[in-house]
């Protein structure tokens, strides 16, 4: 009579620890309702200090000019655009977890999607600051938007990928923020019903929009979530494709390659998942959510890192092969210079961190060992930052004309601005963990209910 197969019995539990629906609410809301611990406070002060450093240095740079950076005529882009692409890339993992895993009906996404979406929004904020501050006159940044004006009207150049970026990043930010907020409305209603302070109750009431849990509302809500996921998926692919076009539509050796759009998208997912892994390992420990963000979830994140890391590695090999096979001497030199020239140290950091390190995740022992995962996630982020640095700086510093060749060295202002962007990111993320539900309560309950039903069927067999 048993319709059960072995696999359905041995499927790993999504929510461990014999949870009930009310325990889920309690576990997730507990940390928001208690005063913050010393751990959160210490991390917050650290993040805020880094942010402060960044704000001071960016203010100085805007006041004095781009000359305080190490850029020159040859290397016109370095840390600024490296950081921009780095942060946009990190944002993509959040959308993938929320949107793409939803379309693939992967239930394990429910305990990590909220934090991942928050990560996306903060990463896109960090990313967006760089194109603005790298302008010579950031106070005229609004000129990137096409609005009727008294200068003609002078319109923007719709044929430029730099302008496509404006629309892509803006749309990505708005849709991600909307997706994140809509997902939180039922949880904000949960917080509203539990809130004791007047201010908290008022804010939760306003932002939960009078949510009552009606099934008719839920029916529309579920469809809305699928629609947003269906929109966000091509959006995320298009955004990083457009970012890659900043390079691919140029003529510089090492940039002018058709592999860039898929290469960048996969690289973004890869680096984003690295950051997700770092954040999740810390979050689950600090918030006591090991029963929701289980080892199984972390292992799945590692599997995605392994897959995308392998594709990125394959892209490196393809690029190198085509540079040789194509016979273009400038392209060939670009790659020889990357591996053996003055920035070879950066290139080999990139290759070891992106090609070799993730391959260790083939071994289950590594995939299920949390300290190992943590180190790998940090190295993935380092490697991907260096990938963008290598692509941008090595291709610029030695292109077609040897008399134009130059070296680039970052100044303290640029390094401090990068640190500041990490400060901004972690400040926002820590505030999120402190005041908002870091796990999608209502989505975990669906998974828990289904899990309990399965277990009861197994018990009654």
């Amino acid at each position, binding site marked *: 009579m048993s319709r059960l197969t072995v696999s359905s019995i041995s499927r790993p539990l999504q929510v461990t620890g014999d949870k009930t629906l009310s325990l889920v*609410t309690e576990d997730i809301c507990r940390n928001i309702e208690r005063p913050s611990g010393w751990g959160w406070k210490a991390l917050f002060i650290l993040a805020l200090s880094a942010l402060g450093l960044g704000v001071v240095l960016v203010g100085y740079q805007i006041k004095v000019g781009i000359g305080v950076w190490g850029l020159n005529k040859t290397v016109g882009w370095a840390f600024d655009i490296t950081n921009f692409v780095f942060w946009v890339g990190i944002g993509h993992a959040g959308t993938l977890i929320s949107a793409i895993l939803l379309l693939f009906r992967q239930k394990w996404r429910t305990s990590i999607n909220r934090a991942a979406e928050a990560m996306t929004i903060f990463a896109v904020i960090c990313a967006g600051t760089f194109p603005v501050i790298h302008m010579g006159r950031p106070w005229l940044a609004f000129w990137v938007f096409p609005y009727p004006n008294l200068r003609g009207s002078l319109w923007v150049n719709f044929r430029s990928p730099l302008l496509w970026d404006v629309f892509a990043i803006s749309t990505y930010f708005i849709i991600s923020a909307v997706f994140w907020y809509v997902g939180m409305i039922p949880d904000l209603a949960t917080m509203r019903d539990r809130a004791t302070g007047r201010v908290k109750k008022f804010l939760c009431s306003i932002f939960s929009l009078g949510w009552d*849990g009606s*099934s008719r509302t839920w029916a529309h809500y579920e469809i809305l979530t699928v629609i947003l996921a269906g929109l966000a998926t091509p959006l995320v692919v298009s955004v990083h494709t457009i970012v890659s076009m900043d390079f691919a539509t140029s003529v510089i050796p090492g940039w002018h390659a058709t592999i860039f759009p898929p290469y960048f998208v996969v690289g973004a997912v890869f680096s984003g998942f690295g950051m997700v892994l770092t954040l999740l390992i810390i979050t689950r420990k600090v918030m006591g959510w090991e029963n929701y963000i289980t080892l199984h979830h972390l292992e799945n994140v590692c599997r995605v890192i392994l897959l995308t890391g392998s594709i990125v590695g394959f892209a490196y090999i393809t690029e190198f092969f085509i540079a040789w096979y194509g016979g273009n001497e400038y392209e060939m030199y670009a790659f020889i210079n990357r591996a053996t020239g003055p920035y070879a140290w950066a290139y080999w950091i990139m290759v070891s961190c992106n090609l070799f390190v993730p391959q260790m995740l083939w071994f289950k022992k590594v995939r299920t060992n949390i300290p190992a995962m943590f180190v790998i996630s940090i190295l993935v982020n380092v490697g991907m930052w260096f990938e963008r640095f290598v692509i941008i700086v090595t291709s610029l510093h030695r292109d077609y004309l040897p008399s134009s060749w130059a070296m680039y060295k970052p100044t303290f202002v640029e390094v401090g601005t990068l640190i500041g962007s990490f400060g901004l990111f972690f400040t926002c993320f820590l505030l999120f963990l402190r005041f908002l539900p870091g796990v999608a309560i209502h989505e975990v309950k669906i998974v828990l209910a289904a899990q309990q039903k399965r277990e009861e069927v197994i018990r009654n067999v």
Partner: protein
Amino acid sequence: MFKRFLVGIFKDENLLLKAVRELRGESYAIYDVFSPYAIHGIDEAMDLRRSRLPWVTLVAGCVGLSLALLFQFWTSTVDWPINVGGKPDNSTLAFLPVAFEITVLFGGLCTVAAFFLIRRLFPGSRPYLRFDGVADDTFALVLEQKDASFEESKAREILRKAGAERIESRVVKP
């Protein structure tokens, strides 16, 4: 003119679903079911009509696409054509990235706005019917007692037999 409701409070979604099916089998109209999460199978059990939000997305997306393409075309060929690197004035291919982004933006935002509008979700909105724990671990099955033909005792019996933790009556201003 007050509204009268009969409410069955459940702690288990399976019992609730059974109750819904039983009640509908006895031709009771379910006013609504309130739950802390979207119950799998409730749409069929309550015979809810499929949401028409996807149509909003389609229309809004088409509007966004048209607006984006038309605007870029107009600025580049009619209002102030500029020779940028010899590229054609009507660079339709180059207009596609921005057009795609605007399509997604319009589609997404209009669908969310439509959702808020049809379910009357605004800052400052208040739930019409509130039940303790419905955002936590409790489910509420609500029947409206529209007229004298509503057989309250039979409904109460069905709810009780289905496993309701509590059955209560409510009188609410419309």
